[in-house]
């Protein structure tokens, strides 16, 4: 049957009771608009989280000891890390390649001691991929030639009762080696706003930390930061060719920080489940509208059947009504969601009042409490389909009712 005729009948049919149709369209538009806005906020915060995690904890590509992911023990290092970093940097000139050491141990001051996560870095390269150097609240960021320098989280400095220029000793035991220690002098303090990070993190230069580890020129990881995440898959293949050592693992960030990936997936799945519930509620509204519209036109359907329209064609017409409702509602909903997202993309959504802080920690990553939504283009395409699909599914029952009509009884229907 002519698609244009079905569409005309459906669209004009919906105009018969404009108020009812408009209320249903408003319901679909509101639901989808809210879903779109919420998803954009979630997507923005997930992107922010992944970006922070990639910067802080990994890189787009990570080279680590093959067993480090199974159990991150300090002695599981990448030996000759400088050579590996150089070969990767030569093959990927646009990338930033850096090395890090992560060590857990005890930090002692004359007045106190506390457990810390020590992070040893190459200061200049590190400053290019994370913003900790911008979060210095006292003193200054690390200098590459200052082997004794240590930067402490502000809260950690308070716990140890130390200030700029004070001495602290880091103690750690790596593998079967004896407990080893190294003296550092406080050169700066940073503040991320996350109590977990500010209270437990210390940063030093790579070389002094290497003294605490076995192997030649060791590092916990060699990280490659690419200018665009979309290059990750291809460049990971290249990196695997450059680092063929079976004792080392070359991973894309998705493998290197699986907890973050799982967190994002779980959070997205939870949101989707919530929206599914809302979708069902909106769909019930569509069922009501289409069913009412059908029940009011039983006689008309009887006449249509009498003049030769088949039940399946009538059902298609009813489904088309649901589709038209869904299409209009989806179009308005997406426009609303995008319009509401727009100002937030520029000015942000400030949740700091609600949470009472500057940032929160999730999976070891500090997240800003000012959320900047991003338009999730992949879902932007999917949402209209979801809206229309729900509306069409909601019209299945009314459409099925129509197929059961008998022409003679339907024509007599008052």
């Amino acid at each position, binding site marked *: *049957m*002519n698609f244009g*005729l079905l569409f*005309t*009948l459906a669209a*004009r*049919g919906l*105009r*018969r009771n404009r108020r009812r149709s408009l209320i249903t369209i408003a319901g679909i538009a509101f639901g989808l608009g809210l879903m779109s806005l919420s998803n954009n906020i979630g997507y923005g915060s997930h992107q922010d989280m992944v970006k922070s995690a990639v910067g802080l904890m990994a890189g787009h590509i990570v080279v680590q000891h093959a067993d480090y992911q199974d159990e991150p023990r300090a002695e599981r290092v990448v030996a000759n890390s400088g050579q590996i970093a150089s070969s990767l940097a030569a093959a990927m000139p646009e990338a930033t390649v850096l090395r890090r050491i992560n060590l857990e141990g005890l930090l002692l001051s004359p007045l106190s001691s506390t457990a810390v996560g020590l992070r040893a870095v190459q200061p200049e390269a590190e400053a290019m991929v994370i913003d900790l150097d911008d979060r210095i609240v006292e003193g200054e960021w690390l200098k590459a030639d200052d082997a004794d320098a240590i930067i402490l989280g502000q809260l950690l400095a308070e716990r140890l009762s130390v200030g700029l220029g004070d001495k602290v000793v880091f103690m750690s035991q790596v593998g079967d080696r004896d407990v080893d220690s190294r003296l550092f002098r406080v050169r700066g303090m940073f503040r991320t706003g996350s109590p977990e990070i500010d209270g437990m993190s210390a940063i030093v230069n790579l070389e002094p930390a290497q003294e605490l580890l076995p192997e030649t020129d060791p590092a916990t990881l060699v990280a490659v930061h690419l200018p665009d995440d979309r290059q990750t898959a291809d460049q990971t293949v290249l990196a695997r060719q450059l680092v063929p050592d079976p004792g080392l693992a070359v991973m894309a960030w998705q493998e290197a920080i699986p907890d973050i990936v799982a967190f994002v997936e779980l959070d997205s799945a939870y949101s989707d489940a919530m929206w599914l519930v809302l979708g069902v509620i909106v769909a019930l509204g569509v069922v009501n509208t289409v069913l009412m519209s059908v029940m009011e036109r039983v*006689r*008309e359907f009887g*006449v*249509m*059947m*009498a*003049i*030769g*329209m*088949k*039940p399946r*064609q009538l059902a298609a017409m009813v489904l088309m009504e649901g589709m038209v409702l869904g299409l209009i509602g989806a179009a308005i909903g997406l426009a609303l969601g995008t319009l509401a997202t727009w100002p937030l993309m520029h000015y942000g959504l400030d949740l700091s009042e609600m949470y009472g802080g500057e940032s929160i920690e999730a999976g070891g990553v500090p997240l800003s409490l000012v959320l900047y939504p991003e338009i999730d283009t992949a879902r932007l395409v999917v949402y209209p389909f979801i809206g229309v699909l729900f509306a069409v599914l909601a019209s299945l029952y009314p459409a099925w009712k129509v197929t059961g009509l008998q*022409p*003679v009884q339907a*024509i007599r229907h008052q």
Partner: protein
Amino acid sequence: MSIVSVRNLRREYTQGAFTVHALRGVDLDIAAGEFTALMGPSGSGKTTLLNLIGGLDEPTAGEITVDGQDLSRMKAGDRSELRLRRLGFVFQSYNLIPVLSAVENTEFVLMLRGESAANRRQRAMETLAAVGLKGMEHRRPSELSGGQQQRVAVARAIAGEPALVLADEPTANLDSTTGHELIELMQRLNRERGLTFVFATHDPKVMEAARRVVRLEDGQIASDERKGS
């Protein structure tokens, strides 16, 4: 040649504990080009007979052949197809599709048949002109009088050039002048186009105009008169 052939047609309805015998063994032949009125009091079975001939209802027993096809052996989908291709219907309450204009109502059957837009629009316009509605093609049913709506219904019934037009009390909701005009219109279409009309009616004017009057009483044919023969 008979366009309609009915043999020993029975239709029974069950209403609670009762069985209503709407038709009790009707035999009837209608030739192509006839202008036939089925008359009779309410409950005599004329609308039931019309519905059965139109394939809108299924008989309890008996045979119905329309345009050479045995309706009693056809599935619902095939009966729909027969109605679409070979039959036209005019109802008492006009029963136009309110959201479509006069010309869209008229071309509706042609759309269902899948005819091209240009062809069906031209035929619908010509048919509306033939029933005296030139200039009113784009009005919605709500913008037309009862008589004009029934003319659109006639146009819709004949636009597809059916073998048979079935009309159930087509003048019942019209005043006498408009009803008379509608009968004249259908007479003219019968005369000029050779269309076969079968009416179920109470209206004496239709009876006067009909060339054949079949009277039904209690579900049986009481008389069958042909005029001028």
